[in-house]
């Protein structure tokens, strides 16, 4: 019920078109890059998927993070703009469930954007690497890994957006964190797993011994930011 409610609140906000547009923009990256540099990529000895990911994922990940930032800001701007959040606070509904409803909606739309990007990578692999076989299972696993790597970023951004009634503050914070995250080197395991940096990691580039640590670290962070929101929701009444 909460999921349907949160989705309904987003009517006419442009939330779904933003995710579709953002997903398509990120999906266009491998298409354009491979189209204009076909010979550079097709001459490489590796499998198509690692080639495509190495060449494009940096920009695709950054666009996806920015999409998550915009989505989280928009979802809470809808709450605060005409004080809808205040009305929700006066109704017999658990505030925590509303937050996790928003989390579910944003995650679903992020999945949609990532699916478009995966489809674009598959198309690029089939179209520009006709001589090589494409390992679809590997691609699906990598995209599943990217979703898990995005979870802490999504939860932290949603938490940040819930803190500020002005969308500009949360948007500014999100954009700064996006660029800070992109500056973190991938060779430092712990640093590269913090929110806004973790989505740049690619499954095929992570050593098999580190995969479970990466997944566990992201799931723990997601829970941690979720708990921070619960604490915030329960303590804000003392200070307001």
């Amino acid at each position, binding site marked *: 019920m909460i999921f349907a409610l949160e989705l309904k609140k987003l009517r006419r906000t442009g939330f779904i078109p933003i995710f579709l547009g953002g997903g398509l923009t990120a999906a266009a990256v491998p298409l354009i890059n491979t189209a204009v540099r076909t010979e550079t990529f097709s001459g490489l000895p590796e499998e198509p998927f690692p080639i495509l990911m190495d060449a494009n994922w940096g920009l695709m990940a950054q666009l996806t993070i920015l999409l998550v930032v915009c989505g989280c800001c928009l979802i809470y701007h809808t709450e605060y703009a*005409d004080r809808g959040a205040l009305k929700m606070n006066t*109704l017999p509904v*658990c505030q925590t469930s509303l937050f996790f409803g928003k989390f579910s909606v944003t995650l679903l739309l992020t999945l949609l954007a990532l699916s478009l990007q995966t489809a674009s990578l598959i198309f690029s692999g089939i179209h520009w690497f006709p001589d090589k076989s494409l390992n679809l299972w590997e691609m699906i696993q990598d995209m599943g890994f990217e979703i898990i790597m995005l979870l802490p970023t999504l939860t932290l951004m949603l938490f940040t957006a819930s803190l500020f009634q002005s969308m500009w503050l949360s948007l500014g914070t999100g954009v700064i964190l996006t660029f800070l995250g992109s500056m973190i080197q991938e060779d430092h395991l712990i640093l590269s797993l913090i929110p806004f940096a973790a989505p740049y990691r690619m499954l095929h580039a992570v050593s098999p011994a580190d995969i479970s640590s990466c997944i566990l670290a992201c799931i723990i962070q997601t829970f941690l930011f979720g708990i921070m929101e619960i604490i915030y929701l329960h303590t804000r009444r003392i200070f307001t």
Partner: protein
Amino acid sequence: MNIIETIQLTKNYGDFTAVSEMNLHIPKGHIYGFLGPNGAGKSTTMKMFLGLTNPTSGYFTIDGKTLSSGRIPILKKIGSLIEAPAFYGNLTGTENLDIIRRILGLPKSSIDEVLELTGLTQHQKRQVKKYSLGMKQRLGLAGALIGKPPILILDEPTNGLDPVGIHEIRSLIRSLPKQYDCTVLVSSHLLSEIELLADDVGILNHGRLLFEGTMEALKDYASHAGYPADNLEETFLAMIQTDNAARKWGDFK
């Protein structure tokens, strides 16, 4: 029987005391007028009832329930309109009410009922951001009335309405206890408003409850205390001025 009671209810914001040791008694089935100048603590008290802010000390009971038993059992009993109408501007009037309806688990027919009651039926398909201030206020009222809650908390419900709208809303509020068997707590800084609406009145100034009782009791109190009793507007002003002077004298000493 009192449906709402506060016991030494206090709310401080740092050094500032918004509500000071307030003991309110709101009888079931009555319209209770909460009267006071701006900043007297009316909205803060109402926000505490709705669990939007926690009391610094003291407590309150609503239909026998305290805040310690959780906000949700209390909120199930209350329909509210606080400060200004709160809604989603991107949604239509019907869609806004549908969100409230779903949360309260009411039938779809409850939306048409409150739209009719607040005179918004013909504007139900319009996005709320395109509503006039008066229409927004009516929608806020519809959001409070949906589901016929046993307690209604209305913070200055006639704000932004034209004289005809004020009259309509006033008549509607006046009819609610009989129609819906509910108790209404309505705040205003206009005595004339409260005089026409309320059975009981509580007068607040700087967070302190100066008087509580029926309109008749207020007149008796005014004549005994030497305040002008013929005109309630003057009674109210005299009470506030006396209290302000006493506070200044206290500060000076």
